[in-house]
């Protein structure tokens, strides 16, 4: 290895990219998935709220009304925001990688090269199946680079799976 250079060079200019990923060009998930998510959040919200009644009902604490109110409010906000949250989920099949986004307050964008695919799963929960929806999991060797696209119509999920397998096959890379 060589000695450090005498004069540190300024950072290499970055690629000319927009300030933030654009909102266009995304393939969105089915609006029916809102139902699945809302039902899920209502059920879990009710359960959490029920549990938060324990201090009031069993221990008769004077301030016992606070936990149910807080938990109930959080659950309500979560449920009310679900339609927007579901609409924020999107994916793009780019030339060489799969781009995925989700989240409102906490936005997350993930790019995974097709060649890194280890396997593709299609899962169907009972409620999603009743609505004809599937969940597609694009699994790589890194847990954080595993993409889960929920709420795809069954036919679309299967077509996407075959497409991804084909793309991965043509761009196969090692581990």
């Amino acid at each position, binding site marked *: 290895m*060589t000695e450090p250079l005498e004069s540190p060079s*300024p950072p290499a200019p970055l690629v000319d*990219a927009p300030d933030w990923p654009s909102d266009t060009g995304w393939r969105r998930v089915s609006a029916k998935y809102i139902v699945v998510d809302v039902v899920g959040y209502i059920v879990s919200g009710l359960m959490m709220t029920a549990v938060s009644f324990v201090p009031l009902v069993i221990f008769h604490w004077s301030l016992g009304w606070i936990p149910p109110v807080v938990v109930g409010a959080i659950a309500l906000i979560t449920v009310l925001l679900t339609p927007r949250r579901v609409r924020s989920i999107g994916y793009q099949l780019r030339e060489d990688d799969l781009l995925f986004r989700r989240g409102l307050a906490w936005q997350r964008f993930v790019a995974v090269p097709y060649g890194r695919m280890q396997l593709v799963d299609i899962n169907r929960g009972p409620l999603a199946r009743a609505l004809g929806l599937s969940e597609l999991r694009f699994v790589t060797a890194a*847990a954080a*680079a595993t993409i889960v696209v929920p709420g795809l119509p069954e036919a679309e999920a299967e077509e996407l799976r075959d497409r991804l397998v084909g793309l991965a096959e043509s761009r196969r890379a090692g*581990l």
Partner: protein
Amino acid sequence: MSSSSGFTDGDWHRLHPATPFLRGGLTLFAIVGILVVNLRDILIDNIFGDGRGDDGEPLVLLAESGFAWIALLAVVVLLAALVIGFYLSWRMHTFRITDEVVEVRSGILFRTHRRARLDRIQGINIQRPFLARIFGAAKLEVNVAGQDANVQLAYLGSQASDQLRREILGLASGTQRAEAEAATDAATVAQLPLVASGEVHPVTGIAQQRVSELLAPELDPDLAPPESVVTMNLGRLIGSLVLSGTTVALVLIAVALAVVFARTGEFFFIAPLLPILIGMGGFYFNRFTKSLRYSIAGTADGVRVGFGLFSTSNETLPPGRIHSVQVSQPLLWRPAGWWEIKLNRASTSGAKGAAGQANTTILPVGNLTDVRKVLGLVLPALVDPESIALLERGLTSSGDDGFHNSPPRARVLRWFSWRRNGFSIVPGAVLLRSGFVWRRLVVVPLARAQGSSLTQGPLERRLRLASVSINTVAGPVSASLGAIDAPAANAFFTEVAAATVASASTDTTHRWGAGRQLPPPSLTPYPDGAPA
């Protein structure tokens, strides 16, 4: 004598004949020994004494009870069954190595058959527990990606296993067989003539060989060019132990005890702490003896990491099996200028590294010279002087010197480190620099990145900041960086996504030796430095 181990001819082979003994037969021998000692007492009594042993000895009681013959028969049958069992398990345990795969078949009633592809090898580990070393045997473990995904050959002849590893790596590298053999021949010219296991030798010869093996240096000097070798410095090892978190805990316990004693005048508080203290003593002893003969060296087939005083272990990581590298400096080590280097790897070997740490710590403690050497070994793709200079500066530097840093408004989230918290993209790799108190530099070779992500929480959105991370296989190193200027983060995300694809498509390390006679492939993942 040929320098080939003879195992790579594609036929099924058996393990070292001492295997059953080394794998647990020792207990059997101990039991037999105890029986013999007891029986000898009875025998001596029978011949010279009054024909009776001491009353109350179980064997004497048995001898007098009239069931002696039945008991003796049972013991003999049991012993025979065990010996036959061990023998059969040894006979049924076979392995073969072809040009493509390594396979192991084992088990008597429940057969297992494990097959690993050679081009998927993540590392080959040779362990020599102390007992096995005395018998000149070694355990060879071929690791592939995945949890507990390894093919273990326990035990082989000590020298044959070194030879076998060289041959497996030669086959896996994709170098043609003839060339591989030529290469291994050349590599072993300077070595002692190899002794294949099971050959008859004069006892003195074997004894001499064992002694020379036990006294041999940890790293065979012919294996790697000396300028690539990093060894452990005794003073630094002791210093790193003294300045470790365990010592801090020990001092805290001592202070707490002193306070309690001063207040109460009672000693019994020590009793529950004794196991902890003993455990700490064990930690120091273990770490010291294991790290004492620590060496890292660059061989033709990858990085070799070896350690151990009594039980030794050494592993070879072929090129392109390292998914991310972290150089970090605990606060206590800063005055001494010591660093620690950790890796993410796709395989999780059952074998522990030096100091009983996971074998992801490749350099337990080292100074800047060691760090430079090790980084050169684990990041062979980083060749241009500018990137290397940037990497070395990145360990300690801060400010606008080749890294894209957090903007001043990130001070809210990175109080001290905002001038240092930054990234740099060099050909083939990404450098993430962070930490003002606990300095940290993470390097991810883009050819190994599994994906990249860009995240932004509510607070970051208000400050127009974002976090980026490069997703690699699981391990102690997490390649992520928070509080980056949002547009810069998006540019990073865009560029890294493109560069990952480009690096992965030009990566040939799964057959790293296939182009060995050709000049090394261009390491610039994209020609103009700025993909579209």
